[in-house]
């Protein structure tokens, strides 16, 4: 009775873990905007209903910024981790119109500050340009609350993503016994949660 029950529970957990892994893969597939359909009524709301509030240009800019902040190294970068899609869905489906307006205006603001077509630059140029802007925002010579918020969102979304949690950081869904004091070298990286 007892071992049956425990076995049943283990199987359930395995099955659930398998399902959630599949779910994550599906969620990582980039959504593409269907431009062929004519848009009527409130343009923003229509985009939102389709889960695609950011237009192609905004999405490319967001992706370029995210990848510059969290580039691909020996682990996934923000794009490989699906961060732009996650934010697309957050803004389109989770947020309300004022949240969408805030992101649109915010992205435009940052884009203007960076001047020119940021997304078209080489990774090294993007790095130099964004590092400069980032340092000005963080040393308060430029006030841009949106940028800080966007960065927070990008980096948090990265660490919550499957590659961010499991490759960049350590993720253990079922740790077992808690140990309160071990050498850091035994772990080597921060826990994802």
């Amino acid at each position, binding site marked *: *009775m*007892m071992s049956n*029950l*425990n076995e049943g*529970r283990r199987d*359930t*957990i395995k099955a*659930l*873990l398998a399902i*959630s892994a599949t779910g*994550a893969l599906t*969620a990582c597939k980039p959504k593409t905007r269907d431009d062929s359909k004519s848009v009527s009524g409130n343009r923003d709301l229509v985009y939102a209903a389709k889960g695609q509030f950011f237009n192609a240009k905004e999405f490319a800019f967001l992706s370029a910024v995210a990848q*510059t*902040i*969290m*580039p691909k*190294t020996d682990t996934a970068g923000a794009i490989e981790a699906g961060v732009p899609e996650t934010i697309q869905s*957050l803004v389109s489906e*989770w947020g*309300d119109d004022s949240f969408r307006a805030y992101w649109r205006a915010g992205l435009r603001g940052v884009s203007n500050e960076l001047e020119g077509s940021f997304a078209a630059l080489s990774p090294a140029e993007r*790095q130099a340009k*964004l*590092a400069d802007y*980032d340092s000005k*925002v*963080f040393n308060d010579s430029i006030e841009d609350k949106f940028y*800080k918020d966007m960065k*927070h*969102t990008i*980096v*948090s*979304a990265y*660490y*919550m*993503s*499957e590659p*961010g*949690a499991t490759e*960049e*950081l350590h*993720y253990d*869904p*079922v*740790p*077992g*016994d*808690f*140990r*309160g*004091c*071990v*050498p*850091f*070298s*035994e*772990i080597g990286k*921060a*826990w*994802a*949660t």
Partner: protein
Amino acid sequence: MYDFDAIIVGSGMSGGWVAKELAERGLKVAVIERGRDIDPVEDYKDHVDPWDTPNLGRKTPEDIKKHPIQSEVYAYNQNTKQYWVDDNEHPYITPEGQDYKWRRGYHKGGRSLMWGRQTYRLSEIDFEANKKENIGVDWPVRYKDIAPWYDHVERFAGISGSSEGLEILPDSVFQPAHELTCAEDVFKEKVESSFPGRKVIPGRVAHLTQPTEEQMELGRGKCQSRALCERGCIFGAYFSSVSATLPAAERTGNMTMITNVAVHKLEYDHEKNRISGVQTVDVKTKATKTYTARMVFLNAGTIPSTMILLNSANAHFPNGLANSSGQLGKNLMDHVGCASAGGTMPGMMDKYHVGRRPNGFYIPRFRNHTEEGQDFVRGYGYQGRIYRYGNQNVNSPGVGEEYKMTGRKPGPWSYSIIAFAEILPDERNRITLHSSKKDKWGLPVPIIDAKMRENEIKLIKQATKDGIEMMKAAGIVNPRHDNPENPHIPAHGNGIHEMGTARMGRDPNTSVLNGFNQSWDIPNLFISDGSFMTSGGCQNPSLTYMAFSARAADHAAKLLKDGVI
């Protein structure tokens, strides 16, 4: 002639215990639960990984619309929101300019599914306090009366903790304690050497760290240190009605579980002086039905149990059923979570922890015990932790590879703490029913009138001061804390420990229940949710509800067998 031997109203922390104890004594019991059934495999969200959590875990505008009160709770998130009530369907009223935070979930298991799991015994000091200080009424029990029942419920529930031999916080029957972290060990050493009357001990929680045969037979397993508890735990590693007491009641074959049915009124037979029926409403169809039983246990939660009795007023009990004392609905208590503070414990950057401990450290009460209280009675305990958190770079300057690498390091040892202070029984803190407003099922809406008073505010101020001194002594840097002269005073209810509105006592004229949780007025009526509490202590109260529920059920079963009721 009766539908059941006993009807238990509510399946949460205390109702589950009554069901188990009565069913195991051979009584045919019905548990009437106003919420839905819970199926662990379907309903628990403890398998959801961070990347499958919607909206980066953010609350949606719909969440806030549906749960304006519930969504403020620490345990409310995208993987737990299914357990909290729709505030629009369950209204209550507070007096103008005054707040009350009523946090709750209606489903099988009630708040035992989402509770904080901290489990502490009351001590003789707590049971004697009202009498010594002439506050409220005297408890009709002393520690020695309830100690064996604490043992009884702890053996079954499973409590992790360390034996400390403290008079203020008696030891439980323990399974191994969760380890303290390196930084907490340092904190403990520094606090205990600077303040000889204070102790820093591992928190005591209802988690299995060394499950017994009995616990494993019920399908419960060892705590896996995931800290996803409020989502429900498929391992059954923390105590809940769903993981423990209800399955135990179920396997006797003596329990009937009735879900989605709300109790509105108890029927009273004046000639026989008995509860003769339980009037219910199906929450989905609004169909009404009356169930009968030889006795009734109210375990709906402090406020709902009081509402049912107030709503059952009749010619013989014009102020509420079983309320000849006039105390029903009065003396509403809670614990006040206050003096929260934080900072950093420097050093030990070469040390880390493994697993996510669903627990922390505990500092038992020392005021008015090992150290004097200046001009107040009672005291407070603290709960805290010192932990290294990740995501340290989300608010830091930098972009690119070097910046990304900084996120691989955990942050420094981060200290956080909160005090839980006792709230005195006070007749002015009370629940009444509105004369005309009703919920969608026709039950009058409660008016909850409670606020922090003089003694509580003094406790909050002193807890803030003591907390600051302990941070200093322990060498915590970058401290954040309240101003002790003008601290944050939380609204009543935030402790989520409603208690006291049907207090037990020694005199029928001043209390609702006798020392066995039995109504003085109506012998076949028992109440063993938090409403029986004569005083609250500063300890998390669920363990005390469990022990008194088991004891009351044992007593009631004997009375029934002896033909007394």
